[in-house]
């Protein structure tokens, strides 16, 4: 049976694994955004945090993903459930692009604008939410886009520790030496990554200056 036929025949399972994959990527990206953006803002406003925050995120990125999964396995509560572990690991990997781009975006705001705002009597909070973040949003979104695309790829590896997702097809296919199964996992994963890249890129453009 040819590939298209195979994909169609198994479309139920493909859908299910795709949803599992989306769950892993979505939750971890959301967490990375909620943690990373504040950290990025912090590093931009208080340079003393710059090195530790960016430095830590950088170090995490250099750990090979499978190794990170392995490190976290024996941790109580986390290691008990592979999806918790995978979500934590994916979140950690998504942090660097989000933090770094938030930092760059906020630092890139015209200092004259910030000075005028502060001089006119805006509080720090007003400055952040009404001026800095809106002006940095396109850059931040570009960081999120990178995080999502990376996560889609990493989530395929998470299947190796039992977290489910499209990687499961790939590993199964490898064990059974079945190319169609491998592709049934690889193609949707690639499509996912490309659509996320495209979709978020479009959003980025819409929010960017003309």
């Amino acid at each position, binding site marked *: 049976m040819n590939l298209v036929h195979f994909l169609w025949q198994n479309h*139920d*399972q493909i859908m*299910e694994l795709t*949803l*599992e994959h*989306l*769950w892993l990527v*979505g*939750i971890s990206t*959301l967490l990375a955004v909620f943690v990373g953006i504040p950290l990025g803002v912090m590093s931009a406003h208080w340079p003393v945090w710059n090195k530790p925050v960016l430095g830590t995120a950088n170090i995490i990125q250099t750990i090979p993903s499978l190794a990170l999964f392995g490190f976290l396995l024996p941790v109580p509560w986390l290691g*008990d*459930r*592979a*999806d918790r572990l995978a979500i934590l690991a994916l979140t950690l990997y998504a942090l660097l692009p989000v933090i770094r781009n938030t930092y*760059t975006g906020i630092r*890139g*705001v*015209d200092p004259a*604008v910030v000075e005028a705002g502060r001089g006119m009597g805006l509080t720090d909070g007003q400055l952040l939410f009404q001026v800095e973040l*809106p*002006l940095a*949003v*396109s*850059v931040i*979104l570009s960081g999120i886009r990178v995080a999502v695309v990376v996560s889609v790829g990493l989530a395929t590896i998470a299947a*190796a*520790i*039992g*977290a*489910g997702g499209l990687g*499961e097809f790939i*590993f*199964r296919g490898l*064990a*059974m030496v079945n190319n169609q199964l491998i592709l049934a996992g690889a193609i949707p994963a690639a499509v996912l990554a490309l659509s996320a890249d495209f979709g978020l890129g479009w*959003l980025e453009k*819409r*929010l*960017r*200056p*003309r």
Partner: protein
Amino acid sequence: MKRHQQHACRRSFMGQRWTAGCVILLSVLLSSCAPSHSNRIVVGSKNFTESLMLGELLAQQIEAHTTAKVERRFYLAGTYICQQAILAGRIDIYPEYTGTALTAILKQKVGGDRAEVYQRVKSEYEARLGLTLSPPFGFNDTFALEIRGTDARRLSLKTLSQAAAFAPQWRAGFGYEFMERPDGYAGLAAAYGLHFAAPPRIMDLGLLATALKDHQIDIAAGNATDGLIPALDLFVLEDDRHYFPPYEAVAVIRQQAMREHPEVAQAMSELRGKISDQEMQQLNFALDGQHRDVKDVAHEFLRSKGLVR
């Protein structure tokens, strides 16, 4: 970048609402992605022949006894993966062995006979993990230390204790899981005082039997129900010191799934004691040796036992 922002964001306010809208949409989408399914039963299996065979048997047995749609998620890469999958609800049932559950999952020490081990695992699973066990299928797939039939006859070896004397002259081949598991090589070597000249070779389970036959290794750790044992004239050494815990084949089932599909309990009880050691060897051989389709073999077997039509 700065020039950009000098002329920036004409729609930044719209942009804010857009972003907020997207976040909300995403969150809604995500919550619907969370793994859960109710009108299907998902059958899992590990990635070796016997597990696959049992998985298919379970799947067909359930299909014959319930109206729910049965999905197969076979070839999961090992005990841990299956455990994670069933805990997360991605599969509802998969074939396991009581000894494996005791040591590798519950991380307890071995001890007791078949019935005791079965009980311990069952009550722990029900109390702590939200899982339960089916009645045993009938065979004990314990680890089998295999040697060539010719060697066994020539050296008059029947038990592991006897064979231990020859260990220094032998090369051993073991599967990955056997090397790593607490109930594997480490404990065995201690229990029988085994000392091999060189460290054991780690090989894929499927290749062990042939390697043994071809004199690449002299002793292998396979399974008692290996299909190739009779086919290749291999001899299983007796575990006279009772080192290995019992490995009765059972199905692990999610209690939630049992509640949603009570017919499954009935389907499982019909399988009690239906598969003997020899019968499992033959089933394995049909797949490994004769390369027949697993669906056909499963159907044939169930029919021969009067479980399906």
